[in-house]
């Protein structure tokens, strides 16, 4: 019976052999031959622990043929006792030096155990016995590639492919070796051969795409894939690799289309849907991206990069609490990981846990002191942190910006004519419905077209109504998503941009890093993660105003200050804003405070201060509205913070996200906005003003802590600004105690704001034009001076070093 089982096994029917064994009587166990058969069948069915007793018993009964010993060794190995296995295999090798199976098994065992040097030696032994042994050629080559000896690996693999030309894995490994020896075209051919032999294997196809990139033959490969996917529309591998290639070529929409099709055809495969998720995330289609990544995660639950990517998308969707738990779980599972820690820092800060967020960022810096991302993360978390000083933040920003890669400073051919029409470049991933759009679009619309033509260098291009306003005002529009920083900088220079305005900073899709390569002779920082100075040596100017950056705070900036005469932004109110309703306090009989700012801005001290104010006004209520309040645990935690200061949950209303019109419409429930600090409301304060609601604000030291000061002052409400926390609380109580004054103010506020410099686009456009002209003339005069100096000593390159002068 056992022999029958063995026959079945050799006929390839592993399960049949096993079920036959299960029906056997235990008496058979006394027979050595039967025991061997039983052990072999168990081993073939991946049950080494069950195979061991049978094989050991057979050996004990004197059955010590080489085959049985080898099987026992394999069973020992698979059951976890590697040392016993190695001893048995070495013994076999001594007994039968011409039999290559034991050293081959030994080599594989060593490799699995991570003992690579011994594995290499064992493979070498196999090849001495049998130079045509394919598994040894392949195995040894793999090890050689891993330790960087790709040339030797290539020679072994060429032999292997010659011996077994139908082995797709041999061709694929050959490709990897050739990639290592920088023979990119040959590598691509090898991968192509592997793909031809195994058209359903995705890995081979993806290797080919990478090789084509390295060889510079992407367009040829794409042309082939176009034809191949047309001829074989059911081949999900071809479609996936076409999608990946399109993405790498920057043709993101087509890439998403191809990957979408691959996923529809092969919905059970994790990789295409993962790549699709990434492409969708880069295209800012976050809902679709998250759904795809979630599905990929279900199919491939232990993939760290995938889980981290999904957490990033959750974060960008403002689902901070979910992002944080996912990141905590993956750090717990996989150990410390720099990028995941950075994401954790941001997600934690956004939940109002600024100290914990900064600590996570600092830990990431410890792990990777030379990496840029942890430094960027620290800068963004510090901005929200209570007690942050301008000097501390500037130092962190400089630490970050100094680590940016830089090319040799370019020489600009821009004609230094102080009065000529100028080309102004806008660099941003936010030329759309976004704070950058709301606060800048009207300014660019009203910039004199005879003096300034606008070129947009855009990422994440959208087609919403603000994006269309940018497109309408721009002379040229370039999508730069696919360009590397050096390529982007070169493009800007080739376009002859005179003044480059960065509207992205270190934010999501920001490309300020490209400014380190110098994109234009004059580089200016404006809205778009403009929470303080850029800290970037190559950023020549920052656009600000006298409230944001009074002269005594100028030393906290690395840039020179381009101070506009009114506010530093021009608010463009939405045509769909609801009308202003009467003061709610009149009907309610109590004052309702509000704060519709991001929870990241609400620190423990802010909550303590607000609680103090509410304690002094017993009937008062507070409405907070933020994306983060969609999450129940976050709501409970914040209510708990207020309760700790004696403010009952019944007095606090926490509202989750809504559409923009509903969002601004909810100001009709609010009497007074309480600004958070140190990071004040920017666009939020403008929107509140437009909806007739004034903001009690605290003037801080960093740029982000003075937005409300600027907006309120421009709207003529400078009496709503307090110099310190105690006066802030007093001011809130005083303002809340004069309902009649509040009602009067509210009824005329929209008209007042509309007529104020905050919304006066033509006036703003003229002032911005003057400021840009001043910056340009400064460059012209320096360039002509430098040119003079260059003639004198030959050492100066015109216009390269201005940004560094104030260091």
């Amino acid at each position, binding site marked *: 019976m056992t022999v029958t089982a063995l026959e079945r096994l050799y006929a390839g029917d592993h399960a049949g052999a096993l079920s036959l064994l299960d029906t056997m009587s235990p008496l058979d166990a006394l027979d050595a031959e039967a025991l061997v058969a039983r052990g072999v069948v168990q081993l073939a069915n991946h049950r080494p622990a069950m195979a061991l007793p049978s094989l050991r018993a057979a050996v004990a009964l004197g059955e010590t043929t080489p085959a049985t010993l080898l099987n026992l060794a394999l069973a020992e190995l698979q059951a976890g006792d590697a040392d016993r296995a190695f001893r048995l295999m070495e013994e076999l090798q001594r007994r039968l030096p011409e039999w290559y199976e034991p050293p081959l098994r030994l080599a594989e065992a060593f490799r699995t155990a991570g003992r690579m040097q011994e594995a290499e030696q064992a493979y070498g032994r196999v090849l001495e016995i049998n130079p045509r042994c394919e598994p040894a050629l392949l195995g040894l080559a793999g090890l050689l590639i891993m330790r960087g000896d790709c040339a030797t690996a290539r020679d072994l693999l060429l032999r292997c492919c010659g011996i077994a030309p139908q082995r*797709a*894995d041999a061709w694929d490994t050959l490709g990897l070796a050739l990639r290592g020896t920088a023979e990119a075209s040959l590598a691509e051919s090898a991968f192509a051969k592997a793909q031809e032999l*195994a058209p*359903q*294997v*995705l*890995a*081979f196809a993806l290797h080919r795409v990478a090789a084509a990139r390295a060889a510079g033959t992407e367009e040829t490969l794409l042309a082939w894939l176009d034809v191949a*996917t*047309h001829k074989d*529309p*059911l081949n*999900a*591998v071809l*479609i*996936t690799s076409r999608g990946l290639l399109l993405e790498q070529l920057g043709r993101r*929409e*087509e890439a*998403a*289309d*191809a990957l*979408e*099709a691959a996923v*529809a*055809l*092969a*919905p*059970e*495969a994790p*990789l*295409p849907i993962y790549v699709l998720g990434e492409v969708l995330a880069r295209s800012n289609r976050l809902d679709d991206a998250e759904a795809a990544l979630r599905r990929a995660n279900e199919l491939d639950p232990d993939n760290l990069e995938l889980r981290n990517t999904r957490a990033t998308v959750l974060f960008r969707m403002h689902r901070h609490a979910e992002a944080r738990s996912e990141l905590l779980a993956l750090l717990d599972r996989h150990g410390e990981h720099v990028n995941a820690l950075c994401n954790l820092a941001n997600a934690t800060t956004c939940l109002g846990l600024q100290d914990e967020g900064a600590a996570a960022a600092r830990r990431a810096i410890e792990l990777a002191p030379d990496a840029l991302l942890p430094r960027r993360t620290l800068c963004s978390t510090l901005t929200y942190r209570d007690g942050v000083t301008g000097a501390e933040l500037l130092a962190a920003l400089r630490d970050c910006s100094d680590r940016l890669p830089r090319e040799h400073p370019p020489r600009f051919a821009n004609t230094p004519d102080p009065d000529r029409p100028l080309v102004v470049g806008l660099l941003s991933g936010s030329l759309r419905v976004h704070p950058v759009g709301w606060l800048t679009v009207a300014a660019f*619309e*009203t910039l*004199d*077209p*005879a003096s300034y033509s606008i070129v947009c260098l855009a990422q994440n291009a959208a087609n919403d*109504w603000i994006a*269309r*306003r940018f*497109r*309408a*005002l721009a002379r040229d529009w370039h999508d730069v998503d696919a360009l590397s920083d050096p390529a982007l900088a070169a493009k800007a220079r080739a376009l002859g941009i005179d003044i480059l305005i960065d509207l992205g900073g270190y934010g999501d899709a920001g490309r300020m890093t490209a400014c380190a390569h110098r994109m234009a002779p004059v580089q200016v920082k404006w809205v778009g993660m403009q929470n303080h100075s850029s800290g970037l040596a190559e950023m020549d100017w920052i656009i600000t105003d006298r409230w944001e950056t009074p002269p005594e705070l100028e030393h906290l900036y690395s840039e020179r200050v381009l101070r506009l005469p009114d506010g530093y932004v021009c608010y*463009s109110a*939405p*045509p*769909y*804003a*609801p*009308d202003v309703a009467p003061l709610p306090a009149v009907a309610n009989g109590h004052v309702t405070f509000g704060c519709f700012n991001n929870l990241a801005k609400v620190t423990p001290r802010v909550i303590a201060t607000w609680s103090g104010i509410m304690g002094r006004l017993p009937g008062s209520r507070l409405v907070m509205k933020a994306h983060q309040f969609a999450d129940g645990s976050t709501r409970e935690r914040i209510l708990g913070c207020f309760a700790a200061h004696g403010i009952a949950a019944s007095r606090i209303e926490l509202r989750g996200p809504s559409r923009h*019109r509903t969002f601004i*419409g909810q100001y009709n429930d609010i009497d007074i906005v309480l600004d958070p600090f140190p990071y004040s409301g920017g666009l939020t304060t403008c929107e509140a003003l437009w909806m007739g609601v004034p903001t009690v604000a605290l003037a801080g030291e960093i740029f982000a802590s003075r937005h409300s000061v600027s907006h309120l002052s421009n709207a003529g409400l400078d009496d709503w600004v307090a110099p310190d926390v105690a006066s802030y609380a007093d001011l809130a109580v005083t303002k809340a105690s004069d309902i009649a004054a509040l009602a009067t103010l509210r009824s005329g506020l929209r008209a007042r704001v509309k007529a104020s410099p905050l919304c006066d*686009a*033509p006036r703003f*456009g003229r002032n911005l034009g003057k400021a840009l002209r001043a910056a340009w003339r400064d460059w012209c005069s320096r360039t002509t001076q430098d040119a003079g100096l260059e003639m004198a000593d030959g050492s100066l390159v015109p216009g390269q070093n201005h940004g560094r002068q104030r260091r």
Partner: protein
Amino acid sequence: MEQLRVTADVGTLTARISALLAANRLGAARQLLSAVRRLAPPSPVVAQLAARLAAGEGYLQQALDELDDAVAQFPDHAGLRLYRADLRQRTDDKLGALADAAEAVILDRSDPAAKALLGVMLLEHHRPEDALVCLAEAVAAAPTNPFYCQGLAAAQEANGSSDAALATLNAGIALVPSWVDLRNAAILLCVSRRDFVTACALAEEARVAGIADACSFGLMGHALSSLGRHAEAANAYAEALKLGPEDPYVRHLVTAAGILPGAPRAPAEYLRAVFDGYAERFESHLISLGYRIPGLIRTVLARHPVIAGGGCLGPALDLGCGTGFVAVALSDLPVAPLVGVDLSPRMLEAAAEKQRYAELHEADLMNFLTEDERRWQLILAADVLIYFGALTELLTIAHARLEPAGWLVFSLEELLPGAPGSVPDNGDWALQCQGRYAHNMGYVAASARNAGFAIRKLERQTVRFEGEAPVAGFLVVLERGAG
């Protein structure tokens, strides 16, 4: 090595293709459609998807071919007919479209979509009564479908009952209040009834509801402007521009309101948009404004030495000829051959019907003068140079295109002190809030002399009436020297 296998079934894939087409993800749909065609035999569903894809990619003929094959194979499938009707309509095969729509209604009497489409097509075939029946049935079956509702209103208007049309639109708005096209249709109907007060009220309702789009604000501006409420109109235009920034029509009006920096002439796209949209009502509107220019030109030309001497004056060029208003006014004078130039294709169609022109050209007048090197005895520009601020370039090129002793005759509006508009510092010209330019008399004279003209006539005239108020302007006759 992990293998990637196709596991999806045809039903799932076709549903996915349909969703992708709806989301305009044509690349993905194309790829999956090829896959489905390998997996499944031909079916009406797949044929329709293929046709939708081809149409989405702009290959209408290919889409029609797909449908022709499918209709031949599945003649009783109403959906195929309905879709082919739509495509035939788009390819100008109006009769074929009508036949398909009718067939679709016969094949599936319960489908309101088929009835609605048939109704819209009957309306186009000038059968408003039949259209009314179909669309009324469609609306009765699906009262919340805004497209059917708009179709019914159009049919009612075509049957002469604009009250019923407005009632239909109002009922639709009540049922689907967030559908801005219905609101805009109602506002437009009121504007065309010259009921500007109701138009303003409807537009204001849309604004308060937060659904007004660029079109609503644009119509609101038009209505307010027609009521003489120019400051509010400027606000409405500014909002329209925020929501429809690419619209040259709105952009020009916003510039005129002083919100955007001024331009030295109105953009060609603006003029084409205005006059194309205006073509049908243009003449009656001008007559209602007491438009006097053609008559004044006629009087001047009757005294031209050639005509006074019994000769024939020509060739003559009519710049901005519009619907041919001037040609009609000159019809009993010997001015020939007369060549007309205009930007608006629809205006030119109306001009052609008058049969007074030897040639008509669709072109921007500056481009025409630059590119067409013929010389003229007479160039006319009635009510046209009001779309130009700076005149120098135009007068110079017109001078070059005149025969010796040739005349350039044109009208302008006068820039009066205190008139609304963004006046450049030099005071030569200003863009006024209705989008037209007004000129200073001294500037006109200086520009004419600088271009080499002798001024035969430059006199103040009332060019038309706005409400009851006369609008001041000039009639200008310039002569090129004999040398």
